[in-house]
């Protein structure tokens, strides 16, 4: 379980990223078809809007595990280690409440579409419950990840394992964030200067 959820989150993020790549290519082909061959398909715009919802919801849990959701830590950074750990728990609790509310109301929207048999107002007339269902699924994984991290964070803090807690739920320092950004560039950049 400890590794399972982060792995699921990462796989979902890659899936969302790949669907973004696919939709970019579809939309590009559509623009070329429209301009060069005067063929109008008009499916790309609608597809891309659903992919946006997938990127937002399927990526949320991954961003959580990567500690990428932005917080202002200028003040809490000055706390003692224990104080900072409690602040991290409060922050995660806030995120958990938000994610649960999102999931709850998103589910309401999904259930309404399913009940009303709503379809998109486009030539495709897609039943809205399909993209909305995928969207809700991502939000549920996000909520579940928040609760999972909260439970682990509380256990670590109570066991006084503050360093581990900071690594798991703490706000990443500017330095480590910079290193993450850099690790994506460096091996390639060195490769290029040959």
């Amino acid at each position, binding site marked *: 379980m400890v590794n399972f959820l982060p792995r699921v989150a*990462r796989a979902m*993020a*890659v899936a969302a*990223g*790949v669907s*973004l*790549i696919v939709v*970019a*290519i579809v*939309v*590009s082909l*559509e*623009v070329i078809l429209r301009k060069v061959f005067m063929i109008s398909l008009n499916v*790309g*715009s609608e597809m891309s*809007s*659903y*992919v*946006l*919802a997938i*990127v*937002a*919801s399927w*990526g949320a849990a*991954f*961003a959580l595990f990567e500690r*990428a*959701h*932005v917080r*202002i*830590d200028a003040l809490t950074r000055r706390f003692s280690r224990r104080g900072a750990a409690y*602040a*991290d728990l*409060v*922050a995660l609790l*806030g*995120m958990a*409440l*938000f994610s649960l*509310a*999102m999931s709850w*109301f*998103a*589910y309401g*929207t999904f259930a309404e579409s399913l009940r009303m048999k709503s379809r998109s107002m486009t030539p495709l007339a897609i039943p809205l419950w399909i*993209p909305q269902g995928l*969207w809700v699924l991502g939000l549920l994984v996000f909520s579940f990840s928040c609760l999972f991290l909260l439970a682990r964070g509380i256990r670590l803090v109570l066991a006084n394992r503050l360093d581990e807690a900071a690594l798991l739920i703490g706000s990443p320092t*500017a330095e480590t*964030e*910079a*290193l993450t*950004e*850099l690790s*994506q*560039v460096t091996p*390639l*950049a060195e*490769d*290029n*200067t040959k």
Partner: protein
Amino acid sequence: MIVPSLFILLALLAIGLPVAAVLALLGYLLSELHAGLPLWKAMGETSWQASTNTVIVCVPMFILMGEVLLRSGIASSLYQATAKWLSWVPGGIMHANIAAASMFAATSGSSAATAATIGTVAVPEMKRNNYAPGLFLGSIAAGGTLGILIPPSINLVVYGVLTQTSIPKLYLAGFVPGFLLTALFMLVIFVACIFWPRLDGDKISFDPLQAFRTLPGLVPPVLLFIIVVGSIYLGWATPTEAASLGVTASLILAATRGKLSFAMLRDAAEGTIRTSAMILLIFVAASFLNFVIATTGLTAALNSFIAELGWSPFQMLLIIIAFYLVLGCFMETMSMMITTVPVITPIVVAMGYDPIWFGIVVIILVEAAMITPPVGVNLYIVQAVRREGSLNSIIVGALPFVIAMLALIGLLIAFPEIALWLPSVLS
């Protein structure tokens, strides 16, 4: 009503709650305290609307394009080319830091990625040619910020969506200030190196043959720029379609350079989602908050509150600029924009300023935020590239460029045409 909400907002942010959660929580509290109806029940609908906004699709698309380009290795050839052409000017390859960053950033969305990319190729050059680190590293941090002003820019898309202003017009408005700021940055370097020659590095003489041989390195960024920005102005593509074309073109570019692989695509996908999911969650929460604010009439209350203060539009503008400078020291820039722009822009427009013009001013303030401590993402990136020495020298080295940004804002206030001329001529 205004003061308590502002207080709640700041208090929740200060204890380190995630920005997205703060916005949603504030929306809930405002709807509980001030609305007759349970507005928070609309959260599902506002979230779905925000999550499927066809213009916002630009945001992950441009991030993806940057992630692919980052891994395509075009930055290195681009840097070598600009360095060969500019190394003879006083200030030497520091001008290449600015020029290469502005060209690379004009094809990429993230200023952090730009600073990291240019920094990685520039820092070895700094050591080899004996430049004084402060100004050199400051110029990388500052140069990296240019990309969000020169189109295509993710931040301008977000501003356009939040304020319902035309994104093509915002892009047009960004051109002249973007190139002006590039010139101001170079002027800063030039003047500094004339007065303090010790800041300058070893002189490299200009070799026309070598310089011409590096020119192909400039082709990919120029081509991408033409595809992405050109297709918008020819009316061939919406901004979202243009961003998609940019992704496809950069994939082809990476393929021709032999950099396209499954591992590379997976890394690019992960990097894209990490940043996009964070921005989108804040955007979704902000959309809910803005819905509550609009429905409860908070905007009107805010405007009358401002009117009662009795400040002149100019005084108000100065206060807003100061507010952004201070906030920018402590807040990540995209979340700062999404949180403040929907509330502040209507005030500024009500005072008679142009929303397109104000968009450009906000972007420059966001750029300043990226290189002012303690939270200045580009400062830390450059420090991480360098791996030694103190952060303080970079902070000091970036300061002259912050002054250049403030000078540009001054120019924009005195001559709004700098931003507004191009959109008025071309539309």
